[in-house]
């Protein structure tokens, strides 16, 4: 079964979202990107109205997550995703301005797959995203638990 992978982007900064999207597109990834500007909306989409995550059962997702969200901490979202049996197989890429090693360590402990610091050096950033895009196009996102 090869369902197209949907990219879920949880990013409150519109500019960042736009930049990320552009770079993903530039790297030739044409998967659908669903954007959320706050945690609540993203959680509702991911876990559904009943909060069980059943709504996403069987969907192939890739989650781009910013840690600094206006309404909740990205860490919490990451934790809940990785604790949910339907969502935990989805790769999560943390994309944030924080380069604090403690924070990075914590994210990996919670099961984040890739941690990317948003650098101000745009070339690096663009490269990172493009590589990520290549990575998206290569990897076969494992089907979510059925």
């Amino acid at each position: 079964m090869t369902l197209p992978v949907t990219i879920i982007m949880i990013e409150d900064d519109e500019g960042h979202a736009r930049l990320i999207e552009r770079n993903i597109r530039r790297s030739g990834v044409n998967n659908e990107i669903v954007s959320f500007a706050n945690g609540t909306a993203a959680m509702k989409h991911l876990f559904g109205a009943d909060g069980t995550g059943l709504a996403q059962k069987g969907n192939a997702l890739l989650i781009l997550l910013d840690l600094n969200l206006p309404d909740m901490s990205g860490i919490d979202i990451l934790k809940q995703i990785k604790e949910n049996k339907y969502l935990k197989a989805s790769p999560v890429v943390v994309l944030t301005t924080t380069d604090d090693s403690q924070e990075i360590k914590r994210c990996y402990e919670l099961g984040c797959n890739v941690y990317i610091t948003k650098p101000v050096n745009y070339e690096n950033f663009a490269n990172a995203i493009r590589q990520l895009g290549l990575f998206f196009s290569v990897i076969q996102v494992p089907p979510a638990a059925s």
Partner: protein
Amino acid sequence: MTAGEQRRRAFWQILLFAAGLLVLTVISAGSVYLVNKARDDSKWVVHTLEVENQLNALLLEIRRAESGVRGYLLTRSENFKTDHDKAVAAIVPALDRVTRLTGDNPAQREGIEKLSAAIEIRLGQFTQEMDLVRQGQIDKATFLMNEAAAADTTAAIGSLASAMIQEEERLFRLRTANADRSQTFAASMTGIGSGLVVLLALISIWLVRRSAGARDDAEARLRDGNLNLEATVDERTADLREANDEIQRFAYIVSHDLRSPLVNIMGFTSELEELGKDIFRRIGGLTGVPAGGPPVDVADIPLDGPDKQLSADFSEALGFIKSSIARMDRLISAILNLTREGRREFQPEKIDTRDFVETIVSTLAHQSAEAQAEIHVEPLPNIVSDRLALEQIFSNLIDNAIKYLRSGVPGEIRIRGRTKLGYAIFEISDNGRGIDPKDHQRIFDLFRRAGTQDKPGQGIGLAHVRALVRRLGGTMSVSSELNAGSTFTITLPIAWNASNRNADK
């Protein structure tokens, strides 16, 4: 209590003490003098009595001799004769004694002379009478006796003696009065002196009690003050810690939140740059290609004239924006690193300082070789401190020393150490370009630099080093002159204890 008041009180106490001492001395001296005087006076009184006594004894002996003669005349009993002889024998020594005793008094001496003469006459009469009685010439003896009685030698003696006795009595009264006066004087002096001493003692006690009271008050106030001070210090420390934590959090959040828009600015600036290239390529395509000609690759068409100028201005503006963004990002990163450093818990461990510094020096070997600098590490005292912090301190300072050498002068960097009163003092000195004394404070400020700006740097190193040294319970200072090298001195506790900092976290 003011200092003046205290001084005045102390002065009064010393004065009182001195007065008491003086009074005691005067009383002692006076007492000794007066007691001596009283003893003298008493001696004189006794002397007078003795003289009187002796005079009376003399008179008694004369009377005994007289009555002995008379008894002998009447009874011719040998008993009376013996009695008379004994009495006559006693008269002369008695007279001598009186003479000796009254030797000091001219008036009495005169009396004695008269008395001696009278007694001599009387003794002569006695001898005559006795001789006559012994020879049996009773009549003649009786006559002589009557004659002697008529001449009244005895009475004369009596009156002379009584005059003398009266004189002595006068002296006795005088001397008794004298002795009494001395004694009264001594007694009153002792009394008044004692009274004074008691009075002074009372005043002293009063003063001492008053100052003790004042001292107790002051002590109580001091104790209260101390308690308050401790409470205040605790309160302030807590406030400061809170404020510091808040600043740290603030700096952390602000630098993070500043970064977010910066990512956008940089990102879209780069997008703009790309766009700009596209736009100018198109302009080139529109203007440079002859109308109706075959399509050519736009990238190959060079711009000219005002279009070229526009493109250059555009690129220049973007270049400034990008370099400013890069600079801002570096500053934000620096603040982030500093706050992160401020949040890190220090772990004290034993450090072989010389070994440790040698290691740092070896990691900087490349730079020092490039700068033709020699680094000498002298023996350094070992300390207990946080390894990472210490590493940052030393590598920053040594790195600075290498970085700011004088061009053309072989560098010589020296690291020395010594201990003093529980602190280790490290000196990192160089023969580099030095720092103008007016910049000595400035170089420790964040983002501030001094001297010729020909080396890359953010103005963070020394601020960071000083913050670390302070956190390690030490101090740091610089001594330097322009073109005369610099010496940075770090004073750190030999045995830094994390507890005295972490405990109050």
